[in-house]
């Protein structure tokens, strides 16, 4: 089975044998039978084939301004990632899961959404949060350890992060079943028809809940888009530990149409999501999209990828960077210049400064808040325990210095 002593180069070659993007690394275009949609090569060249015409039409309206907007989104999403990672290294955050390398998948899909659509993310969807108007600073509350959420989901139609892998795909499907009952599918009014998108990874596809979500969505023909970011790694486990077939093909058995897109190609991600959303809103039911991408960073700041993957593989994917290729396109089309680059740099610096100030200014939640919102209505056990604890705390009011056994950090 596994060859333990395979040389890294040979291992990489073996992995690349199943890599649908391998052909494009040498500058060639994808073969027609690649089973993967790409509209923009790593070299920043638009791919124009008869087969991808319908998808090209879906991005045809994206003019230079819109493309610069997508570029700005991706650059600032990455800046957020970098700043949060630094803040963790400085001890300001307990943990942070980077989305580095997945900017195109997240921005491309997120920017295809309508305001009334609803998103159920996993926990690495900082770029999608950005497109939904969530203040990304609020994401850091969770990783600072002061909140399990951090934003108002209903103000942004962007649910809280879900840490139990795949559980939220069922919430998305149920929400979509509610949308159907509200009569907001297939009305023909683009301001009313509503779709739901759920984000998850390659590892999540092994969870039973994801299969159950696909079953419920399929039999109910619910308006939900299953957006799988196949970033090749579930912490240390490669996709070969999750599936024997390309992940999107799993959807076929459920009767759900699917496609695989170059997840580092923001235009392909936008086009595929737009198509799936249109199907959902018009009553055509669910779609499964596999965005073939790469987790360029560690799983989280606690992870060490050098224990399980090669630097050659990481280097290969750096050459497929989602941000570089859009900048190359903008440059080739005369839509980018040094002045714009400098302005975006300054915007990134300002974001970084704001994030640092915000995080360092976050206080400690009140101890009483531990007892708040366990239930929406009064619960006698919580009430009694809260009262007891308040009295216990108050008993030290005149004698605070003598309580030496507890080692609370920060202001109490």
């Amino acid at each position, binding site marked *: 089975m596994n060859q333990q002593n395979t040389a890294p180069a040979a291992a990489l070659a073996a992995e690349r044998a199943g890599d649908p993007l391998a052909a494009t690394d040498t500058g060639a275009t994808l073969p027609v039978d690649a089973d993967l949609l790409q509209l923009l090569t790593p070299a920043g060249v638009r791919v124009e084939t008869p087969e991808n015409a319908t998808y090209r039409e879906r991005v045809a309206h994206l003019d230079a301004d819109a493309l610069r907007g997508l570029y700005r989104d991706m650059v600032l999403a990455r800046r957020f990632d970098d700043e949060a990672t630094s803040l963790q290294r400085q001890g300001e955050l307990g943990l942070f899961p980077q989305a580095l390398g997945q900017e195109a998948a997240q921005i491309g899909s997120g920017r295809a959404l309508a305001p009334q659509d609803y998103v159920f993310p996993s926990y690495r969807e900082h770029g999608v949060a950005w497109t939904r108007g969530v203040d990304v600073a609020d994401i850091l509350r969770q990783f600072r350890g002061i909140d399990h*959420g951090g934003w108002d989901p209903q103000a942004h139609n962007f649910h809280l992060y879900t840490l*139990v892998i795949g559980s939220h*795909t069922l919430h998305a499907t149920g929400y979509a079943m509610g949308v159907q009952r509200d009569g907001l599918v297939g009305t023909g009014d683009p301001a009313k028809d509503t779709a739901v998108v759920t984000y998850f990874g390659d590892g999540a596809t092994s969870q039973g809940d994801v299969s*159950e979500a696909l079953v*419920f969505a399929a039999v109910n023909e619910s308006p939900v888009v299953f957006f799988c970011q196949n970033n090749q790694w579930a912490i240390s486990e490669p996709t070969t530990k999750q599936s024997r077939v390309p992940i999107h093909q799993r959807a076929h058995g459920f009767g759900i149409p699917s496609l695989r897109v170059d997840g580092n190609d923001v235009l392909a991600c936008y086009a595929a999501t737009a198509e799936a959303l249109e199907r959902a809103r018009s009553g055509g039911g669910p779609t499964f999209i596999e965005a073939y991408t790469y987790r360029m960073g560690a799983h989280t700041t606690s992870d060490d990828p050098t224990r399980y993957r090669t630097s050659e593989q990481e280097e290969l994917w750096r050459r497929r960077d989602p941000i570089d290729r859009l900048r190359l396109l903008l440059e080739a089309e005369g839509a980018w210049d040094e002045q714009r680059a400098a302005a975006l740099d300054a915007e990134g610096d300002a974001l970084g400064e704001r994030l640092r100030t915000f995080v360092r200014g976050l206080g400690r939640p009140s101890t009483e808040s531990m007892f708040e919102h366990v*239930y929406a209505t009064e619960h006698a056990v919580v009430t009694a325990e809260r009262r007891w604890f308040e009295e216990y705390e108050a008993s030290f009011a005149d004698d605070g210095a003598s309580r030496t056994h507890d080692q609370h950090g920060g202001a109490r």
Partner: protein
Amino acid sequence: MSAPTTTPSPATTPAASPGGTSRLTLGKAINEGLRAALDADPKVLLMGEDIGRLGGVFRVTDGLQASFGEDRVVDTPLAESGIVGTAIGLALRGYRPVCEIQFDGFIFPAYDQITTQLAKMHYRSRGRLNLPVVIRVPFGGGIGAVEHHSESPEALFAHTPGLRVVAPSTPQDAYTMIREAIASPDPVLFFEPKGRYWDKGDVVLDGPVADRTLNSAVVVREGTDLTLVAYGPTVPTALKVAAAAAAEGTSIEVVDLRTISPLDTATVVASVRKTGRCVVVHEAATFLGSGAEIAARVTEECFYELESPVLRVGGFHTPYPVAKLEHEYLPSLDRVLDAVDRALAY
């Protein structure tokens, strides 16, 4: 998975007359409560396996799909995690789903959704999101069933902050409590004593819907010598014990908890302060069961009034046994009387 087919359906007894008092089985009382909730709020919907055309394996949802349609009485795929997970999504969209788990032993595929998602959403959203989801679970034994069809897992859920856990014992409470559970903004695990589905009682329909029954125990028989604490299927057992003991000159007070989370400690404590003795009866295994919590609280609050240790009668620390042995496993009249005698002999 199948209900005993030779038993008449509890929900197909003659329909109740709205507004008045009707004599209903416990199953039919829940059916009437569900019907009233569906009538009162278009956002209420029922979800579960075989609950639509079939009316549920115990017929508790009998006739409801015919009245309210397939979008409101939903025959779901056979996937418990999917039922609860999609119910959470529906609740986030503003619906009030009432899920039926076909049998107690089949709740565990949904255990993750219930404990990690349903129970915590209000808390992790800092109160921004409510999940008014009810999960109905036929529970308990005594029906001669096969494996996984007779269990009492209520303590597992009562141990989870964020959930309310209740169990009615009478048709009236079954009717009132299902309506109050559906009206609650909190998730409620609604344990139905399946062995008592066919018990009959008078039910006043269309009473007020508050959250009274979800927070309070009730003294169902007054007495002076000993307090029997029970809920769900063991309440009728406790009343039989009290009647038998009365014939021997012992006065037993019976408390029907109705709710396990929260626990109405005050009602239990008031009773035990009066009687000085307490025996807790449930079908679930006694080891780390809800009786242990009650015993601890009674001991803490009634230490000087107690004339004997708090005793527990319940299932053993074995898997639920084969049907031919369940009579020995379940807290029978004799085993409860034995505990009463031991408490009185102290």
